[in-house]
């Protein structure tokens, strides 16, 4: 893995009001090609941190830079995915995947071919012309993933993308996600409140604690790759879960929930 830093935060802070501090003094460097999980309880500022990186909201203090440039707004090399698939209901799957191209004004044969291939890659062969309502929740997220790939972004910010799906679908999609982003050029930040999922996917887990939202620990995950579901039962994996839990409970003891 190259050590080139793509995302860097120094003292990054976001306060919504004087007392509501969503993110406080975040300091981190994310190397190119790595997969970072951002785990923490609801309301700990994970999503806010993700939106700061995406340039969707303005910081209150500190610095956030992507490829050595201060983030001032949405960037072409950053793609987003949400807990909801956010598909346009009046467009077929492939038309949804082509949305990024349409917005950039380059819907040519190349873009169309890429969208077609993207849908095959996420396992939606034969569903290219289905409308979102004709697809299951898991399939809708697959379309959203294909759309994300279509943007050509090499920094992927995923905000609990499979959080609304059932356990089985989620596990399968996680494995497929790893296969797709297993590329030294692609840097991924994955927000979740599921500790197992966070560890399973990541090279490094950032543990966030609430009020104020802080990154309490950064834990390296040195499990072998490619990851398999069976690893989740190994002693090493359980030790990592305990480590994350200890960080969270250390901060949560006595805190009002």
């Amino acid at each position: 893995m190259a050590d080139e830093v793509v995302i860097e935060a120094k003292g990054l802070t976001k306060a919504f009001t004087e007392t509501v501090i969503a993110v406080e003094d975040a300091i981190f460097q994310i190397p190119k090609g790595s997969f970072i999980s951002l785990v923490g309880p609801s309301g700990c500022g994970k999503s806010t941190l993700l939106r700061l990186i995406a340039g969707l909201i303005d910081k209150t203090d500190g610095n956030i830079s992507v490829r050595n440039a201060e983030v001032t707004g949405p960037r072409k090399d950053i793609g987003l995915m949400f807990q909801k698939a956010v598909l346009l209901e009046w467009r077929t799957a492939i038309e949804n995947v082509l949305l990024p191209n349409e917005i950039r004004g380059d819907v040519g044969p190349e873009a169309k071919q890429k969208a077609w291939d993207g849908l095959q890659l996420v396992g939606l062969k034969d569903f290219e012309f289905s409308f979102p309502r004709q697809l299951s929740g898991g399939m809708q997220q697959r379309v959203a993933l294909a759309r994300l790939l279509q943007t050509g972004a090499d920094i992927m910010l995923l905000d609990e993308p499979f959080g609304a799906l059932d356990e089985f679908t989620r596990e399968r999609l996680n494995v497929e996600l790893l296969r797709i982003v297993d590329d030294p050029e692609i840097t991924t930040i994955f927000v979740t409140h599921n500790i197992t999922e966070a560890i399973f996917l990541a090279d490094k887990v950032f543990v966030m604690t609430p009020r104020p939202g802080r990154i309490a620990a950064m834990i390296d995950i040195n499990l072998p790759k490619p990851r398999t579901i069976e690893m989740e039962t190994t002693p090493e994996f359980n030790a990592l879960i305990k480590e994350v839990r200890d960080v969270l409970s250390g901060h949560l003891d006595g805190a009002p929930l």
Partner: protein
Amino acid sequence: MSDVSSDGILKGVKELSLVHKLSMHLGVFVILIGGWELGSRLGYVNELIMPPPTAIGYRLYEMFFITGSIYWHYFVTMFEAVCGFIIGVSIGLSLAVTSAISPVFRRYWAPYAVVFNVTPGIAVTPFIIAWFGFGWSSKIALAALVCFFPPFINTLTGLLYIDKDATELFRSLGANRKQYFWKLQIPSALPIIIAGLKLAMTGALIGAIVAEFFSASEGVGILMQRFAFRLNMDGSFAALIVMSLMGLSLFTLMEYMDVKVLFWRRHSRMEEVSKKRKAKWSIN
């Protein structure tokens, strides 16, 4: 596959065969109308208050097929209602779009639309007649006035309440204002806009007829009033039924548009459109 819209939330009625359903409808209809007719014939119902269905039916037959007198009135009222609808909807839609785009306009101008709406439209009929005269234009004006509000408020609501995640998606993709408006705001708002148009259609018909009641020389409204003033109740009722027919035909038109435009709300239509899009697809 059945339609989402017609599925019904509570399935109280068991699914029957078409013949069975039709005969049930017919049965209920015959009981109602037959009871009424019988009541009249046996003298329980005063014919001056409630004429028997056969008399009304005959009057309708006469209007449509013997004298043909109804057609012109029908056309006049329809024309007034539809013109009023078009004008009212145009005003409502443009006010809504302007309000959605400009917060300043929304804050300082839109409240007048609300005041306008809470003032009973019917009450301004005398003004409308004073301003626009006794001809068709006053009816069109009242129809427009009565029907502009539902499209306005529905369109404004639809354009403003856009899914937050979808907005973030569009921002992150670098969409400009125009793309955001045409590719997200308008299609997201379409269902509620069309619901507003349906309300406006009925409103426009009411507006046109009420204006005719005040003063008119032609139209179904004035026709009905003339019959009523002469205590010609069967004629009056016949005119009322003609009004229902008008409302029904306009409403059917709106339903048709609903089904055509909002295809993503109905499974059967989605399948159709899906096939069409597939056939149209080419990599070039």
